[in-house]
């Protein structure tokens, strides 16, 4: 039976020694008393002598390493092909109460007020990933913090003098968004021109009918996009760990610029709303944004988004995909051209150019879903 040669004790005060050299390799035959290496501490250097004859089966340490006194240096066996016994870790696992959720999982359970008994663990302990999977399967929304944190690359500080400043919560959110876009999505962009007049007329008509003070053009277009997601569910999904994650609700993200701050406001559960309810809900969210008082549920959890830069008269903008979404529509309407543009940044892992074109074409045609006696601009003339 294989037996271990352990790291010798140099001095009762030193729990660790430095492996200076080890002059055996797997398959070597060594004899009791052979000096096969040296280890050292701060105070002294000693030889490592083999304690029995045998073949070196496996080496568990390397020169330059610090090794704990008593840990295995290498395994010896009577025959060169003897198996090395599986060592049951007495450390980590044994130290943790088996089955207890990890600390990260416990923090999530506490934050989401979840009963751990309802969530199956994939291994011995309940993990954060188990909770995320369960949330996904049951259609519940996790906290923003529970999303997989974007991989952060370690950067050296610049050599020019300066200081590190903490990001605001919003800027940190944007960093997260951009990093997710960079690291996870296979982002692509396409756009098409359309005639903005019919949509403008429809919006004007709707405003008159509903006695609205502000033009409902963009809210109506966003609502139309949300409605399209009910038919074309693909645009309301994402990829998580190589599987498609189909969102149940259609939570519509809508960019709002307030001063220097860009918010992605979110109207949740739009699938059960009609146009009026949607416009009211979006108006409410926008008011919160204007006051810089967006509650978390109105600033997170978008599944599909709409962004317009018509106000700034740009001819094109290519938005960043909000984390874990596959489509954001970009609306631009340069005043001088008489034409408007509908573009879209999309995650090519989920959607093809064809899919997105179909969505944009549909969106370019004015339609208020759910309204009886659908209004057709042509018919008014």
């Amino acid at each position, binding site marked *: 039976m294989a037996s271990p040669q352990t790291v010798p004790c140099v001095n009762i*005060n030193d729990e660790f020694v430095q492996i200076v050299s080890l002059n055996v390799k797997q398959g070597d035959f060594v004899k009791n008393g052979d000096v096969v290496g040296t280890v050292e501490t701060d105070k002294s250097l000693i030889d490592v002598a083999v304690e029995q004859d045998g073949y070196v089966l496996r080496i568990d340490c390397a020169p330059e390493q610090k090794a704990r006194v008593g840990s295995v240096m290498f395994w010896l066996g009577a025959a060169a092909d003897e198996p090395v016994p599986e060592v049951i870790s007495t450390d980590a696992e044994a130290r*943790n109460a088996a089955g207890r959720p990890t*600390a990260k*999982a416990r923090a999530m359970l506490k934050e989401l007020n979840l009963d751990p008994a309802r969530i199956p663990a994939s291994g011995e302990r309940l993990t954060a990933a188990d909770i995320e999977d369960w949330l996904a399967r049951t259609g519940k929304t996790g906290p923003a913090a529970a999303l997989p944190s974007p991989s952060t690359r370690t950067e050296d*500080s610049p050599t020019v003098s300066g200081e590190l400043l903490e990001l605001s919560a919003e800027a940190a959110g944007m960093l997260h968004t951009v990093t997710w876009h960079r690291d996870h999505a296979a982002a692509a962009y396409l756009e098409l021109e359309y005639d903005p007049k019919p949509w403008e007329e429809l919006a004007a008509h709707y405003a008159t009918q509903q006695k609205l003070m502000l033009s409902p053009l963009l809210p109506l277009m966003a609502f139309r996009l949300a409605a399209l997601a009910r038919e074309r569910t693909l645009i309301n999904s994402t990829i998580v760990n190589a599987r498609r994650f189909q969102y149940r609700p259609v939570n519509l993200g809508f960019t709002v610029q307030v001063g220097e701050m860009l918010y992605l406001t979110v109207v949740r559960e739009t699938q059960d709303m009609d146009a009026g309810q949607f416009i009211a809900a979006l108006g409410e969210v926008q008011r919160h944004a204007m006051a810089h008082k967006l509650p978390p549920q109105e600033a997170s959890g978008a599944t599909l988004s709409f962004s317009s830069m018509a106000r700034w008269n740009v001819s094109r903008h290519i938005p960043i995909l909000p984390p874990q979404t596959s489509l954001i529509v970009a609306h631009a309407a340069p005043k001088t051209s008489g034409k408007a543009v509908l573009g879209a940044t999309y995650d090519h892992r989920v959607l093809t150019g064809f899919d997105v074109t179909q969505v944009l074409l549909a969106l370019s045609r004015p339609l208020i879903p759910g309204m009886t006696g659908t209004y057709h601009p042509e018919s008014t003339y």
Partner: protein
Amino acid sequence: MPFAQPRWLMYIMRMFIAEPMMSETLKINTREATLAGESTPWAQLRFTRNNHGKPQIGLDPENLYAFGHLIRLTEQLILEQFSRGLVSGTTHTCLGQELTAISVIRALDHPEDAVLSNHRNHGHFLAYSGDFAGLVAEIMGREAGVCGGWGGSQHLAYRHFHSNGVQGGMMGIGAGLALARKLRGSGGIVAAIIGDGTLGQGLLYEAMNLASVWKAPLLVVVENNGIAQTTDSRDTLGGGIEARGAAFGLHTWRFADDDPGFCRKVAAAVSEMRESRRPGFLVLDTRRMGPHSKGDDLRGQDELDTIRERDPLAALARQLPSATCETIEANNRAFVESVRLTANASPEATLDETPAHIFTLHVEQPLPGYPVMAAGSTVRQSLNSALRHLLETDSRTLLIGEDLHDPYGGAFKVTQGLSTGFPGRVISTPISEAGITGATIGLSLDGYLPVMEVMFADFLSLCMDQLFNHAVKFPGMFRDVAVPLVIRTPCGGRRGYGPTHSQSPEHLFTAVPGLTVVYGSHRHNLGELLTDAVLRWRYPVLFLEHKLLYGEKIDPADYLTLPAADDDVAAHLFPTLLRGATDPDVTLVSYGGMLAVAEAAARRLEDEEELAVEIVAPSLLSPLPRGSMIRHLAMRSRVVIVEESHHEFGVSAEIAAAMLESGFKGQLLRIGTPPIPIASARSLERSILPDEQSVVEQVLELF
């Protein structure tokens, strides 16, 4: 010798003297002289001054009586001012001991002669500085005071004159000042003046032994007035006084101030001692005519009458024609009245703004060259290279401590090879932690850059008075005075060394106002930190090193430097590092040897518990980097401070308090050593000091 260079001399002058105060003093004297020309009271006294303002007092009875009487009148003025409620604090006069004071000080005729005096210092000060108005105004707490009101009666400073209120507390400093004079070949000597009551103070004997071993020109002067405050000598003194000097091999003299040849004999002794360039021990028998302070004299009237009859000043007067005496006394009275008017006219000392600390921020120091470290250097090698580099590139550098010499090279081998490479500049000392700390202060006051090693941090408590009452007081009271000393010492346990060789006493020293406490780790560039502590920081630094890290390789791993904030003090020299999650579930704050434990715990928390862990590792514990580190921590949600020190009332408590003051709203936990001795048995020690497992367990309780 670097001291031969004029620039360097200027540096010494600037460091030892509070220049603005000196010029203030001179201004007052000049004003007196200018206002009334030859008829000024001072001019009437007919004492000339040397270039430094020191009165030139002859040995003839007329001269001695005139100055002695002037001191007595000044002391009486001070008591009068006190009775009028014009004195700030307390005072101790030298009534009856005037001649004793004059005898030694008048004989110090070398420009680099230094005086360390005590609470009963007015006579010494006046004979050294001639600044009567500066003294009286100082005691009254006025702007025109020689120390701007910071010192009062007991803490006076003028050129190479310093006094302090801790009996015998400056003796080690005296040994250091004397060593500095010896090292630079100066003809100056150091007179350290104590009373016989201080013969019970241990530091005195450390200093006498050091001066003897170093053959340094320290003259210990004992003013033996037979009483310690209110306690008679028979209750405070065992054995003979002179025997004490002789025991340490000091040339010893004893004279009485009622001996008609007293001042001449003292002058001869001082001269002999100066010629010998060796330490000396001068006992001066005298009697205190007044109380210890004011109204606290318990002696009987018979004894007081005897003392009055013995009065050596009165005896001098009897040698003079009465007309001479009357002229002297009248002139002195006129002069002291002018002193009173000058002091009364000076406004109360005020501060434009109460300083937040003693440090002058952003003092431009030239960037030093740094030692070149071989790749893979250990902490020990890094520190050794830095010390070698300092010795090679800056002749002011001295290493001082126990057993530093080769082949031993210090208990943890940090100074190995240096005594061989730099003979005379690596000084192995007697076991006298307080004494060598004092000597280190003296050396730094005199322009050297001493780096002292204390063999185990546990012994730092022996150095405490020197740091707490002396090292930080000089730059604290006098902004221009630098005390650029560094004390290095190994801390920490996990080696089974037991209760007095295993402690991490940083918490005691971070509490010393004005002491800079640095405790780096193998994640810092320790060689650079030490170089900066020596060359770029003109204040006393305690530089802590963990025993277990000496063999670790210097490796910054994935740590980044947290930039110092503008309002941080010294954080640009002694940075805080951080690594790990930018949006952490938990932040571990740790330093020194505990950092390795915190890192191991962090790895397990990350691997086994899926936690995003950030580690913040300061190297500067005091002054606390509030602008950078505390501000950073205040934004975190869970912070755990892990320290090896006994943490109650400690560094972690201060960090936690500062975080709360900065708006911290999260969960906080402190992990450290409980307030019990650190046992020797490894099994016991393991359960007392926080380790990886206990840190993990305690952090998990937060989740």
